[in-house]
């Protein structure tokens, strides 16, 4: 009986994307908050193109000015305009985190599904290797490698490094997901009815995996942002490239707090908190909408209030 009540997803898909967004905006405050915050972040990122100063140039503006009309976020002790630096910082942090998630998750999905579908000794052997990678503490390894490569750690290299250390755990999750899908009755019936295995995977399993990958990518993104900021604050990344973490590093380096230049610290910290919270609010409310099960529960809850 329940299926009849809930608007079938097929019907949902036909609705134009715009309509979906307006629904979400009207009905899920989390989505609105998230969307607004992300729009600000995107605006910041795009503004970096208009920056009159090159981010690596120093002493282009008078140093240590408090926020004013001329410099909305104030200036740093290195004589840089904090507003334009922040546009590059937000953009670079997003690039690192985005790349890291793509690298990490693609390895995880490929490996996870490969293990899930092949099974047998190959699966057991590779799985125990994956397990041992899970067992190795990731952060110290990351710090060690970053400390070694530090001077030469460009943005893509940093993303690759973070990505390469964040595939073990997700691959195990994907393998488990694939295993359950393989056991599902509809897979057997599809296989019996002569569907070639590849089409079974593409047409039957992928729609199941996509929301799962989306949700998992969120955690991946949060991990990557966290790692970039942690490594940079510890001074283990290329300090010349402005990112959220390196801006905080320089603020600490020039004792922004002690000498009363608070704006230099507030800007990167507030930016990283707002960006991450915005992203998380948006993505969770979106994935709730896409996943039929959670939508049903949401409807039930909504109707009750």
């Amino acid at each position: 009986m329940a299926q009849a009540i809930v608007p079938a997803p097929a019907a949902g898909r036909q609705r134009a994307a715009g309509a979906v967004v307006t629904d979400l905006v009207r009905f899920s405050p989390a989505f609105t908050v998230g969307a607004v915050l992300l729009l600000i972040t995107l605006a910041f990122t795009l503004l970096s193109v208009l920056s009159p100063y090159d981010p690596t140039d120093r002493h282009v503006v008078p140093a240590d000015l408090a926020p004013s009309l001329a410099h909305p976020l104030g200036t740093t002790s290195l004589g840089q305009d904090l507003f334009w630096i922040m546009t590059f910082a937000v953009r670079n942090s997003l690039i690192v985190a985005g790349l890291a998630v793509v690298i990490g998750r693609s390895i995880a999905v490929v490996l996870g599904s490969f293990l899930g579908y092949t099974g047998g000794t190959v699966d057991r052997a590779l799985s125990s290797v994956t397990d041992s990678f899970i067992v190795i503490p990731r952060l110290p390894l990351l710090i060690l490698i970053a400390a070694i490569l530090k001077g030469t750690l460009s943005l893509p290299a940093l993303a690759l490094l973070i990505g390469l250390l964040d595939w073990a755990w997700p691959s195990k999750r994907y393998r488990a997901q694939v295993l359950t899908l393989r056991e599902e009755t509809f897979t057997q019936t599809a296989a019996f009815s002569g569907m070639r295995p590849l089409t079974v995977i593409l047409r039957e399993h992928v729609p199941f995996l996509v929301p799962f990958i989306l949700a998992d990518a969120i955690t991946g993104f949060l991990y990557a942002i966290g790692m970039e900021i942690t490594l940079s604050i510890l001074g283990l990344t290329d300090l010349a490239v402005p990112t959220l973490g390196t801006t905080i590093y320089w603020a600490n380096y020039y004792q922004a707090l002690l000498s009363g230049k608070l704006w230099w610290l507030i800007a990167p910290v507030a930016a990283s908190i707002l960006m991450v919270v915005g992203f998380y609010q948006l993505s969770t409310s979106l994935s709730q909408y896409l996943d039929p099960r959670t939508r049903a529960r949401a409807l039930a809850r909504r109707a009750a209030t």
Partner: protein
Amino acid sequence: MSEPRDGIRPGLTRRDFVGRGVALGGLLIPGTSLAAFLSACESGHPVQETARTSAQLPVNVPRDKTLVIDQIFRYSVTKNFNMYSPTTPSPTRHGLVMDTLWYIDQQTGQWINALASDKPAYNADFTQMTVTLRSGVAWSDGVPFSADDLAFTVQTLMASPGLIWSSDMQVNVKGIAKQDERTVVFTLKKPNPRFHLYFTSAYNAMYMMAKHVWEKAADPRTFPNFPPVSLGAYTFQDVDPNGYWELYKRRDDWQKTTAGMVAQNPGPDYVLTLFYGDDQHKVIAMKQHALDVLIDLNTEAFQTLRKGTSSVSSWYNDFPWAYPNELNVRFFGFNQTRAPYDNRDVRWALALALDLVSLQTNYEGGVTRVTPFQVPAVPSLIGKYHLPLESWLQQLSIDVDGQAYKPYDADVPKRIGSWAKASGHNVSDSISQLHQLFGIGWWKHAPDMATKLLTKNGFKKDGSGKWQLPDGKPWAMTIIAAPDEADAYRLALGAQDQWKKFGIDVTVQSLERDPFNQRQYVGDFDVTSTWGALAPTAIADLWQGLNPFHSRYFAPIGQSTQAQGSNNWMRFRSPELDRVIDQLTGTSPDNAAALDLSQQAVKIWTEQMLTLPTVSFKKFVTTDSTWWTGWPKSDHADRQPLYWFMGGRFAVQKVVPAK
């Protein structure tokens, strides 16, 4: 007659001791919701100066009887006083607990006899050195110090490879004879007029072992020597198992220690060394009068501390505040195995392209002395090198397109002085005063001359003003630097800006401390912004600094200079310099010829631009006079204030309670 070598001594900088994480300490402002609250109290400083009843100390000893010292770093191992084994240094321990034969005070250059009663006596060909010891000195357990201890120390070190000084003793000492309770004669394998320097402390020198304690040790290399039987005026009392603090108590029989005999002052009853973490925490601790002396602060932290607290002062009462007389120099090292840095003209061009006045003021806050020589312009050396050689500097000329160009610029100190006046500091105009504060002079800021030098060597400028190497490729230079060594790192950033304006594509690679050291050891760099000096001890004789640069210790690219024991990271080979070093080796440091040869070496070094020295060291050695006074300051500079040097024990001993 090989001599103790201590070439370019990296010197003990803050980073050696302060772990990266700690330097961070980390202070940050919360999200927007809290920003309002914080900006409200942005104006007034959150941590007000409290009265004398400062924050309580981790140990219950009377505050007015305890001198609290910045421990500089946290000990990872607390119950081990074997300071001979190759482990992390423990600077605040050796001054209080260990002792050696002689000291040379870094501020005055004065020779101090400690365990020895007078100077070392050599025979004619410097193959024998006789030491007569001071009488009346006792170990902390009351056993008198005697010649047996000295002989036992050297023999034990010779027999245990891997300990500090062990291989030096093996290389130098043929035999040790104890003539009587107070006399020991060393016979040397080859003539060495500087053998006594092993026992003469600049930063430190051979610590004496208590024979009656160490002879029971199974293996001196792993003997913990805890609790230590000591010769210093203080005995070890208590330690925090996590390594955050150590407590020492003055010996009742402090007159039986050389520190007591030399300083003629009892000093504080207790000395507490305490680790507060990064500059941020030290400033707060000193504001709360929970810290009496600290090693160093970066400029911003010092300014904040100075403004908020009246009882706080560094070396000068006013600008430029910091202690400028450490025997060390900041310099740019060019990798002379890589083109174009192997070309002398190119190095000179890079020097002339720099505006040192701007570097010294905008990047270093105007607080350090400039020096054209690889020797710092400190009181004990300015009269031996900078002033006598200034006329030579004025005549020094380099060939630019056939005509002789004189690069020396004598009024650099004047320009820095006027910058200081413009920034509101009162600085006198007398040339001798300016020399004291800012050094004698440096190279002219002459980019046009630099351009001529480069074009003479086949360099061309492309359309957009960027330099191209003689082979046509764009000139891309990387400078390596360690951010935790603040002055060197800011000089690297300054040089990058200026050389970039000059037309070179410069990138700074900021490296973690150990990888930075390693890149220097194996020569994996174009330019390094680093530090070191030819005068590790405050004596005119530079043999200790020059010897490791002799080409016999040259380490090819890829092989670590540490394997050769040399600091020649720049990997130059100068036959003229070798000849001077060989002559100097046989000359006694007290002989006038030693100074003349050292001056020759400095001239060769400077003319060939083997390195590009810029400014000398400075440290905000800061003291709080709330509980203790009597620290050496610029107006009564009778000894060095570097308490973490072994020789700093006399400064600690002479401290008196504040009224």
